[in-house]
């Protein structure tokens, strides 16, 4: 929590002025009962109307000044907490942006999103409360106790009993109900899971005529939610009456013992009234205090998660000092001729945090302009292999070279820019179709976009859409079919006219005809582009210049279709299962 506090130094003014004014307001608030006591004891007793008016005026003035001071404080709190939140959020997002794949895998998307939204909001709230209440509440509690001690030391013992008692009750009830709230959330998640399942499985449920069964299942889960909610209700229903009872019993005690003290002459009637006022103030403050404890406990947990993200440094960075930029032109530079475009030399790789190699002892050369097919079963390491090329991960052993130089010698940014990547999952972003294509090339012209769309075999359907290239992608592409989405992701990678095009099982949603046409178009239009195609379909890669067969992280064979079909049994098995 304290590490994040450094951001508060930008809001020094607010952090000092805010609590200061809040403190003044609290002081005023503590004075009011005393002034009222003097009205009763002096004003009324002496029938002094001028005194009453004057003292009444003071209460009004104290109230008004209190308001002004409080407003100043609230404004400071708003500025500091929102400013704090905005700054941390920007920095946190920038920091997450610097993460490489290893760190992203480590945290997982959901965690990062949560940290950036919920945890940060929690911290923001804590900062506001810090300024608004952290000074005020304890001061009110202690102040009220001190004031009562000044009035009558013996009677103030009641306060010392009441304060811990209220705290204990609050603590107990919260402690009892919190696990229930968590359990309720879990049950509610189940309700939403069943709803989600019944929507996505509507066809299957109806095909099996299982609606009634599903309704029963839902009702059971729903009953559980209601049951647990009512259990929580029973417990938290104690909160108000319990504090109410303690507070009022304290008042009764004050009345009785106060009566004795007044009879002895050591306390006045007005002071007894002041006492009851203080006890009310304390109990109100204690309720706020309990909330503060909850807020800060949550904030501490949030802060720990935020710091955890901040403290994680990306493992994969540019080498310090000389790093050369890589450009498509450079790659065709004569100086680097004689080397294969890409070479894997004894490469082994294990995902961070695991010891099993996902790839083991890989040796491959890929030359310029080649079309390379990578095939193998699920989990054989195909996607892992292509993920090493743009340095999403660094190899564990061995080296990957581009034109004879280790990939680490280039700046990451320039290295990644020579690749066009079409991922396995056809993800589209919100915005229009052309916006999506510009993700890869910000300044792509309409001609370039159309060119890419045409090669990707998407021209027909895009131009048939009512708004053509300006069609807005809805809900990650729900308004397009799987095959259409996939073709747009291919166009997106093509628009950069990449030196190396990586297709990571990117034809899976295409029917065979489109698949064939697309391969034809790639071959015709991207003569200088090296294409690396990952696929499960033998058909897709069988005409490649070089086929790499992977089996369980190792190279099972490299060669052309005919040779491999004869020599590599893994490859033969794959082909036989697919080709009629």
């Amino acid at each position: 929590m304290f590490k994040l506090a450094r951001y508060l130094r930008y809001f020094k003014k607010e952090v000092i002025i805010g609590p200061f004014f809040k403190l003044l307001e609290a002081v005023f608030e503590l004075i009011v009962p005393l002034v009222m006591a003097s009205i009763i004891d002096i004003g009324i007793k002496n029938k002094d109307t001028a005194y009453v008016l004057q003292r009444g005026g003071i209460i009004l003035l104290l109230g008004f000044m209190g308001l002004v001071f409080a407003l100043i404080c609230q404004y400071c709190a708003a500025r500091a907490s929102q400013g704090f939140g905005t700054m941390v959020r920007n920095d946190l997002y920038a920091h997450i942006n610097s993460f490489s794949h290893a760190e992203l895998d480590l945290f997982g998307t959901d965690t990062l999103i949560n940290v950036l939204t919920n945890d940060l909001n929690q911290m923001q709230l804590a900062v506001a409360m810090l300024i608004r209440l952290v000074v005020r509440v304890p001061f009110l509690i202690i102040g009220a106790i001190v004031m009562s001690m000044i009035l009558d030391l013996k009677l103030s013992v009641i306060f010392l009993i009441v304060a811990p008692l209220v705290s204990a009750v609050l603590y107990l009830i919260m402690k009892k109900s919190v696990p229930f709230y968590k359990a309720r959330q879990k049950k509610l998640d189940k309700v939403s899971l069943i709803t989600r399942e019944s929507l996505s499985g509507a066809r299957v449920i109806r095909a099996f005529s299982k609606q009634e069964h599903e309704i029963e299942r839902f009702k059971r889960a729903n009953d559980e939610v209601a049951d647990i909610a009512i259990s929580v209700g029973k417990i938290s229903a104690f909160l108000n009456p319990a504090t109410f009872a303690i507070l009022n019993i304290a008042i009764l005690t004050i009345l009785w013992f106060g009566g004795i003290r007044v009879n002895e002459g050591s306390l006045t009637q007005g002071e007894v009234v002041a006492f009851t006022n203080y006890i009310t103030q304390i109990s109100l403050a204690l309720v706020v205090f309990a909330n503060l404890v909850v807020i800060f406990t949550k904030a501490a947990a949030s802060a720990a998660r935020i710091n955890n993200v901040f403290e994680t440094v990306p493992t994969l960075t540019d080498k310090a000092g000389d790093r050369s930029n890589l450009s498509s032109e450079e790659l065709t530079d004569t100086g680097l001729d004689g080397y294969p475009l890409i070479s894997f030399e004894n490469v082994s790789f294990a995902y961070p945090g695991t010891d099993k190699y996902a790839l083991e002892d890989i040796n491959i050369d890929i030359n310029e302009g080649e079309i390379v097919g990578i095939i193998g079963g699920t989990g054989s390491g195909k996607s892992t292999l292509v993920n090493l090329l743009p340095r999403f991960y660094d190899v564990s052993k061995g080296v990957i070279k581009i034109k004879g130089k280790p990939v680490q010698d280039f700046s990451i940014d320039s290295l990644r820019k020579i690749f066009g990547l079409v991922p396995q999952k056809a993800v589209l972003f919100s915005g229009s179709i052309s916006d999506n294509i510009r993700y890869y090339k910000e300044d792509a012209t309409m001609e370039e976009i159309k060119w890419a769309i045409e090669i990707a075999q998407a021209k027909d359907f895009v131009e048939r859409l009512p708004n053509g290239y300006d069609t807005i992608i809805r809900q990650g592409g729900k308004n397009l079919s799987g095959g259409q989405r996939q073709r747009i992701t291919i166009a997106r990678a093509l628009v950069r006219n990449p030196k190396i095009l990586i297709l990571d099982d990117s034809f899976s949603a295409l029917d065979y005809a489109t698949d064939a046409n697309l391969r034809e178009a790639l071959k015709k239009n991207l003569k200088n582009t090296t294409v690396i195609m990952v696929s499960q379909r033998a058909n897709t890669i069988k005409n490649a210049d070089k086929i790499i067969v992977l089996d369980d992280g190792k190279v099972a064979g490299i060669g052309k279709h005919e040779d491999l079909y004869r020599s590599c049994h893994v490859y033969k098995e794959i082909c036989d299962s697919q080709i009629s």
Partner: protein
Amino acid sequence: MTSKESNQTLKRLFSYAKPYRMYLIGALFSALVSVLLSLLLPVFLGKAVDFIAGPGKVDFNGLLRTIAYMALFIAGSCIFQWTMSFCTSKITYFTVKDLRNSVYEKLNIVPLEVIDKTPHGNIINTMVNDIDAVSDGLLQGLTQLFSGIMTIVGTIGLMLSINLGIGFAVILLTPLSLFVASFISRRTYRKFTEQTEIKGEMGGLIEEMLGNQKLIKAFSYEDRALERFKEINARLHKCGVMAQFYSSLTNPCTRFVNGVVYASVGILGAFSAIRGNLSVGQLTSFLAYANQYTKPFNEISGVITEFQSALASAKRVFALIDLEPEPSDEGLLSGIQADGRVSLKNVYFSYDKSVKLIEDLNLEVKPGSRIAIVGPTGSGKTTVINLLMRFYDADKGTIEVSGVDIKKMQRKALRNMYGMVLQDTWLFEGTVRENIAYGKEDATEEEIINAAKAAYAHSFIERLPNGYDTVITKEGSNLSQGQRQLLSIARVMLIKPPMLILDEATSNIDTRTEIHIQKAFARLMEGRTSFIVAHRLSTIKESDLILVMNQGRIVEQGSHEELLRKEGFYHKLYYSQFHVTQT
């Protein structure tokens, strides 16, 4: 929303609460009693103070009696505060439960078209969050509103009964409380709405960017993403400062208004006391009232704000409940002797009336034959499935099974005749066993295992951590796509239906599983009329009839050879593929 609409929504909501009206009455009664009892306390506090007049003038008997009364009131108020909360939570959660059940039941009887067209996220959101908002805002709000009004009325009544003049003075100050409370809540509401919008926008961006961070890195899009993030963040900051400031005004302003009331009561009360019209104790009672006078006003204005958003939520909930269900099955045939004959006569269908899809489709399917449906991606191959299973009804024409119009039989009867395996396999959270036995709950262990064996699923199931008892997590994410498909084949294997609808998977299935799936499909199809959305050449070649679809229409039909001879669309489709296939 007009007030008439609001009234209707409220009325409907209360019709849901009706079965629990005893709890409602209980809650309101408890609120009434606890408020009255707690309001009486300051009166007795005043009396007690009067018994403590000064040194030697304390009436201990009177004091003790008053304290005893107060203790009774406190105890009574506590009990009724508890019963109020208890009754409120009962009525709230029971009503919420009923609402959820109604929504869910409706979802199971609406035409599939509704489920296809409505974003699932919206429905789930209504099911979870909107219904929660209704419970918080409308049902719990109701008791708060009631006890708030009771407190104000009671306070004013008691003040007037102690001293008319001072009572009236407080009433005159009331508009101030109202004004302040409504001013703040209006401002806050407006700013909060704006802030929620910006937060939503930011959430969307974060979800999209971080959800695809690996792609963002591949695109080198990080800097542009950061720019977009910063821009929204700056707007959020500007709006957030004011939203937070306005919302934090409530407490100080309340304290101020309270202060004004307190000072006024103090001055006027002291004047009356000097004139002898008011005792010090009565002044104390007044001060105690003044101290908490504004509290109910704030609570009420808070409740009203929540009320509005809860009403909007309730409207969305009722919109779901009001969905038109599928026409009833009542009185239709509950079962026929299926022999596997299917015929389509002059069938017309389209999803959207302005775009014609299936026109005058005629098809005669003999028992046991295989129909392959082929066509490019997105050509509408699943439309045929939708019609056969009556997920959608044909606009014109008839579809008959064994000579009986499918509209004349119960949907359940029709669907039980088909076994369906879709490409998007659907499994639910439950054990492997439960998932296989989905179509036949009373299946024996032996039947389940035999079905799994026939579907080539037995061996991988045995290798799962808990075998047949392994719980499938969220829609099957702990299984590979191929394994999920094998499970859904086993599911159909178990019920042995006379007819089949199969959707061949196109994507990511590893070789060995793929072989298993093909074998399982072949075994399943033996002797059964089958409709197959086909992607594999072998399947197509071996089928008796091929329906060729393009852009949503059936453009050609016939056997493989016939279609090739035609040299039409199928010819093109086939050769574009064969062209690469030949070795």
